[in-house]
């Protein structure tokens, strides 16, 4: 088995979640999702488009900042990434802050496009490397965007969650996460200890498979070179050996 870094693993995991997508959009401050999307494209049969916010080469928008959102509502974006200062077991995400609103103890930047894109893009992948009880809470303090909705037009929503510890799928009917695999060197117990909500998992949880040599070569070669356009410092760190 090849040696790989956690970042390389996460890129690989994300790329697998994008199989079959025709158009993957990547928002701001998202070097790992961006790399994962570029990797997925390089592994596709050539019919996947990737839009990377902040990129020039991988950004075809010509109608201003509204175009990403219009594309989503038109059904022309298959997958997108969201994070959250807090994420709860119902898939609700909070990008606003902790401890009361509007005057809380901690204020984060704001909801950005989440209160819209989470509703409209079929395959939203929650990506948050930090997997602690600070992030994975029983209930978010502020719902920037809800995980599920009743009686509202909602073709989109959470599909999976990738953290530094494992990969989860989201079951929209049961409104719960299900742990699909645990990353190498971590355990189900560690995940349970660091998660503030209940989630489902099978009797035997498999280990997340790492990238093979050919994938690693892609990540360290062409993907690194391509993501460097938007995230030069991240690309430098990608060269560090495990």
């Amino acid at each position: 088995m090849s040696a790989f870094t956690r970042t390389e693993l996460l890129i690989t995991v994300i790329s697998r979640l994008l199989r079959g997508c025709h158009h993957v959009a990547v928002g701001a401050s998202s070097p790992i999702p961006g790399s994962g999307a570029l990797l997925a494209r390089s592994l596709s049969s050539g019919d996947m488009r990737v839009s990377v916010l902040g990129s020039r080469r991988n950004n075809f928008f010509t109608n201003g900042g509204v175009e990403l959102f219009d594309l989503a509502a038109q059904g022309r974006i298959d997958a997108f990434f969201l994070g959250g200062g807090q994420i709860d077991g119902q898939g609700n995400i909070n990008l606003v802050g902790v401890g009361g609103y509007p005057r809380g103890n901690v204020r984060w930047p704001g909801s950005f496009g989440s209160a819209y894109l989470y509703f409209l893009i079929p395959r939203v992948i929650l990506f948050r490397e930090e997997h602690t009880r600070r992030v994975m809470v029983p209930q978010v303090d502020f719902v920037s965007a809800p995980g599920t909705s009743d009686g509202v037009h909602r073709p989109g929503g959470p599909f999976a969650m990738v953290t530094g510890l494992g990969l989860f799928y989201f079951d929209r009917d049961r409104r719960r996460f299900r742990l699909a695999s645990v990353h190498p060197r971590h355990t189900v117990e560690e995940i349970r200890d660091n998660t503030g909500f209940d989630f489902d998992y099978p009797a035997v949880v498999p280990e997340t498979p790492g990238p093979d040599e050919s994938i690693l070569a892609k990540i360290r070669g062409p993907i690194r070179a391509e993501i460097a356009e938007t995230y030069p410092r991240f690309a430098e760190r990608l060269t560090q050996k495990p």
Partner: protein
Amino acid sequence: MTNGLFVPVNELSELVYDGAKLAVPKDSCGVAMEATRELVRRGVRDLHLVCVPIGGIQADILIGSGAVRTLETSGVTLGEFGGAPRFADAIREGKLAMRDATCPAVHAALQAAQKGIPFIPLRGLIGSDLMKHRSDWKVIDNPFAENDPIAVLPAIRPDVSLFHAPLADRFGNVFVGRERELMTMAHASRDTLVTVEETTDENLLDDDARAGAVLPAIYVSKIAVVKQGAWPLALGDIYPDDETTLARYAMLARTADGFRQFVEEWLSRDLVEA
């Protein structure tokens, strides 16, 4: 027609009056930082600042300077330099009337003003706590379907839009390129103030390649020519972020004293005016 259209940047900034609803673009789109410096120097007050759709160092400085009464935005961040410290501080101190939004809602509400319609429906939103706190947003039944609630947002009609662009012609036409939201902002606003890197004697509308990405002069109230007018922010491919200054801001602005120090240095810097 172009008499008095071109003015020095301090005169341009005077048209952003106390209490104005001011729309500004996001960091990568052409932020009029030199004009913002004039606003801070003058001590503008009580702004209703609309970030299209998110704010950065410009919003943080205006907030830190006490210029903002109401803030309408989908986020304020210094991007890779971290959170916006004066914004977070003002929130903790309860100094801002906060209107948290989501990016497409800001765009849609401006497009409503552009079209002269009083409101616009938008998908998403329902079930977000944003709706709870935005008493100006409502939910109605889609008149064309059964059991289909949908959010409706009132138009945002800024008194003034303010941004920086690469090029204007002497007739007042401004090249905005792919930054189409600048066009929407100008269409939606009563007045539009533009700073530009340079001007040309040709009519930009005569250039078939560029004409489709030109904001026509009818929307433009005043123009000031300011080299490096977005500094320390980038302007497209013309110049990059001044990362040293942005990092220095992020560090100093963590405290009120540090912020004052940064602003003092910034205000005393020489203006590069054409």
